């Protein structure tokens, strides 16, 4: 499976797709990027008059690149996708509208249909904005 094919395999679409590009992938790790468009819907409310990317969205971005994309690569070819079952994330810095982030994920283990990864997100200055452990179980892709 190529880096481009991974993206076509994901079960997400706008406005809840948080992967732009996969830079590197192998059996044990993956690296990808996403740019938070300043017009994304959640900036209207988080926060009032002061848009900051919500932690849940940063977590989702880490999970889509670090877990779902790596899972798609590891399980190919199949109709399976990895659904998040747990996350433990530390948030170190804010991510503002229009910022581009890079997510790097390293596999802890993939056994009995469970994928566990250590994932970090960095901003364009190379500063770690959040990091932690996310795990998920593979299951049949939800219907369109």
């Amino acid at each position, binding site marked *: 499976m190529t880096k481009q094919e991974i993206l076509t395999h994901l079960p997400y679409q706008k406005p809840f797709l948080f992967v732009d590009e996969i830079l590197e992938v192998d059996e044990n790790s993956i690296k990808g990027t996403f740019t938070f468009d300043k017009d994304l819907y959640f900036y209207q409310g988080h926060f009032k008059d002061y848009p900051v990317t919500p932690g849940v969205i940063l977590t989702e971005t880490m999970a889509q690149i670090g877990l779902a994309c790596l899972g798609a690569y590891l399980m190919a070819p199949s109709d399976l996708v990895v659904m998040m079952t747990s996350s433990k994330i530390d948030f170190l810095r804010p991510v503002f509208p229009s910022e581009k982030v890079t997510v790097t994920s390293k596999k802890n*283990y993939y*056994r009995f249909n469970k994928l566990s990864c250590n994932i970090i997100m960095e901003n364009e200055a190379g500063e770690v904005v959040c990091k932690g452990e996310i795990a998920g179980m593979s299951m049949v892709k939800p219907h369109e």
Partner: protein
Amino acid sequence: MDNDQIINDLKEIITPYTDHKEALETLTENTDLLIDLKINSANLVDIILDIEEKFGIEIDNDSMTKMINVKETIAVIKEKLAANAG
């Protein structure tokens, strides 16, 4: 290694994965991990991995699918320990 010894080790391994402490305290061979201890499938995988580490065994997919209650889990542990010894 007798069953009581394995059950004690299992209780210790399972503790962080269940909120049902009473069912855990009174754990017997008939305890079902999913029904009685309300452990989800993702945490069950972590329990199996902890069991591998604790007992120094490797558990295959077929054995893993049997390990939903204490009785079957003990049987798998004993089988793998015996295979190691042999």
